């Protein structure tokens, strides 16, 4: 087979160029061929550094392959194929090019052997993905896109500063274990934390993802956060702080997800919840935990993409995405309903679906390392994610009360993409050996034993029972058209009001200062007017007659003086 040494991101960028120049079926063909060729190519590539050059005093390695980066690269290729198939019907060239560039940037980031290359792709991820938000062309999307871009670029700037500190201290740019020592460790940690949606830094995600186009959100859900998870897994494995950050990330978003009405925003909250499991696993740091985190990232890209695809299909066909406006769509979109339920079962970690074989690794690892409280939090989050993503999403979109909306089934390309993702979810869940063989460490974990299956089934079925009971008794909160405050309130409201207040105060000071100036000016003018105005003593002009009279008097006096002195 024809092979190339070119790094995957170059192939994707070439693909983006072709996507810009071609239209219609040819474009679709090229855009699908690129990730397929790139994946086949990658399959043949041995591990090691495939591209390096010197930059000033430092060695740059833009294409370095090892097991960890390969794992992410494979799933990014799968995500690219799925997302491109899903968006084949899109005629908007900007979106197609941005999607291709975005996927390429993510691949560039995971193969970056040095931190400077990582930084470049870190910023490219932000710059390319924002067009997927702007392409929605709503006023809200425009504003949200700007906010998203500012936060993402800020993350990149933090990373760059951290990298500069790192380079001066260590004398190298190699992307290895970093850890939380020194200023550079914390700077890079926060840079990754923003992209990873750490608590309080998370809001860009729930703000922006639901405002992108139906197809754009599918791209967005796959790459940015998973690149951040990859960077954490390489730079900060075994950092204890991450255990607690991860546990917090699994728990807090589910409360917002329960009361959120926009179903794609519900999914955005559950995305943070799932990333929490990965962050927690990386923090635990044992071979089992890291394997679990990476495997869960792999599965999450597919099932979260699947869920976003089903909601995207609903939005595409009905133009609505609020739970309060939907319902009964299983009648018109039976296939989409089925795929959504596969995604829901996978994210809820039902046995035989993909979430089950990866999430449980992290949870077992938490127990093995004696993190009992964290384990309880993860268990609570597992029940909670079933509750809001597993039941709420399919229930309010496709069942619940009939909204009366009758529409067509999703377009064929969307159905193929969703079907492929569903098949992968079931395959990974039922036959995890393939997934496990790709993991960075040797796996001796058996997901399917009586204990695990029974415990998980009990947890899930009784969570479902709780949902039914809450619905029946009317305790379940109704879906309402509303905005729920989150940490973005601090910069969207508080900071804005603060700036407005400061502006107002500055205005007042300025006003007073101006008033004082005016007073002084008035004083001076009245003084001048008094003495030098046309009617005043010094400034006035006198009438000719008077002047002549005075001059005559003067002359007379001179004459008298002259005569009298003789």
């Amino acid at each position, binding site marked *: 087979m024809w092979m190339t040494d070119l790094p995957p991101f170059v192939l994707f960028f070439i693909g983006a160029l072709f996507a810009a120049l071609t239209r219609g079926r040819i474009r679709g063909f090229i855009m699908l061929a690129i990730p397929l060729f790139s994946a086949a190519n990658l399959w043949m590539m041995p591990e090691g550094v495939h591209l390096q050059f010197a930059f000033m005093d430092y060695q740059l390695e833009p294409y370095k392959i090892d097991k960890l980066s390969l794992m992410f690269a494979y799933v990014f290729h799968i995500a690219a194929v799925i997302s491109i198939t899903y968006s084949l019907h899109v*005629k908007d060239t900007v979106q197609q090019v941005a999607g291709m560039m975005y996927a390429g940037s993510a691949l560039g980031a995971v193969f970056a052997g040095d931190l400077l290359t990582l930084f470049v792709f870190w910023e490219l991820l932000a710059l390319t993905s924002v067009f997927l938000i702007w392409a929605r*062309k709503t006023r809200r999307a425009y504003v949200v896109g700007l906010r998203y871009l500012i936060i993402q670029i800020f993350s990149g700037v933090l990373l760059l500063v951290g990298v500069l500190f790192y380079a001066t201290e260590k004398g190298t740019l190699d992307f290895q274990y970093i850890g939380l020592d020194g200023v550079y460790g914390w700077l890079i940690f926060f840079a990754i934390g923003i992209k990873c949606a750490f608590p309080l830094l998370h809001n860009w995600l729930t703000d922006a993802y639901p405002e992108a186009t139906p197809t754009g959100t599918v791209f967005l859900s796959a790459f940015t956060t998973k690149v951040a998870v990859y960077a954490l897994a390489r730079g900060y494995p075994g950092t204890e702080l991450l255990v607690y950050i991860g546990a917090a990330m699994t728990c807090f978003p589910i*409360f917002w997800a329960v*009361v959120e009405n926009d179903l794609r925003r519900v999914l955005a909250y559950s995305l943070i919840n799932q990333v929490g499991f990965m962050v927690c696993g990386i923090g635990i740091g044992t071979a089992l935990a890291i394997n679990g985190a990476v495997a869960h990232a792999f599965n999450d890209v597919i099932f979260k993409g699947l869920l976003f695809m089903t909601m995207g299909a609903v939005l595409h066909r009905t133009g609505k995405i609020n739970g309060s406006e939907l319902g009964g769509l299983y009648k018109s979109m039976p296939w989409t309903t089925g795929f959504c339920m596969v995604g829901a079962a996978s994210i809820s970690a039902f046995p035989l679906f993909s979430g089950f074989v990866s999430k449980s690794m992290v949870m077992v690892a938490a*127990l093995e390392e004696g993190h009992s409280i964290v384990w309880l939090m993860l268990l609570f989050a597992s*029940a909670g994610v079933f509750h809001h993503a597993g039941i709420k999403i399919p229930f309010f979109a496709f069942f619940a009360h009939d909204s009366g909306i009758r529409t067509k089934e999703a377009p064929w390309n969307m159905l193929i993409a969703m079907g492929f993702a569903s098949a992968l979810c079931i395959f990974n869940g039922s036959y995890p050996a393939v997934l496990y063989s790709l993991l960075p460490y040797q796996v001796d974990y058996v997901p399917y034993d009586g204990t695990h299956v029974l415990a998980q089934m009990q947890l899930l*079925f*009784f969570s479902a029972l709780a949902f039914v009971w809450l619905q029946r008794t009317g*305790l379940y*909160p109704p879906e309402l058209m509303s905005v729920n405050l989150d940490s973005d309130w601090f910069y969207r409201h508080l900071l804005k009001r603060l700036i407005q207040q400061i502006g107002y105060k500055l205005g007042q000071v300025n006003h007073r200062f101006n008033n004082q100036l005016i007073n002084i000016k008035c004083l001076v003018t009245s003084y001048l007017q008094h003495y030098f105005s046309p009617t005043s003593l010094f400034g006035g002009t006198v009438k000719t007659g008077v002047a002549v009279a005075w001059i005559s008097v003067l002359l007379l006096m001179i004459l008298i003086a002259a005569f009298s002195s003789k």
Partner: protein
Amino acid sequence: MDNKPKHIFDDPKNVKRVMHFLYASCALLFALDFVIHRHVYHSWENLWGFHAIYGFAGCVVLVIVATWMRTFLMRSEDYYDDEWNTDLDEKNTSDTGAANVDD
């Protein structure tokens, strides 16, 4: 509406069937706890039906707390709407967006 084909959950009997299946599964799973010997990672798991009770209680607490949070977190839909002004109309944007560009 009469000439439209009936759908599966239009018949309340089918909804009832699903509910009965759920109740039966829950009862069965709870009963299995007494039959299957589980190897236990944590002492709390010795409690019979630990996962079942935890799952149920967890979800109820989740929903009740989330509903309570609405009292101080919920705002009207246009709470943040003063973020844009009329200049944005010049940026080729609208309320509804380009939802149909990809049709």
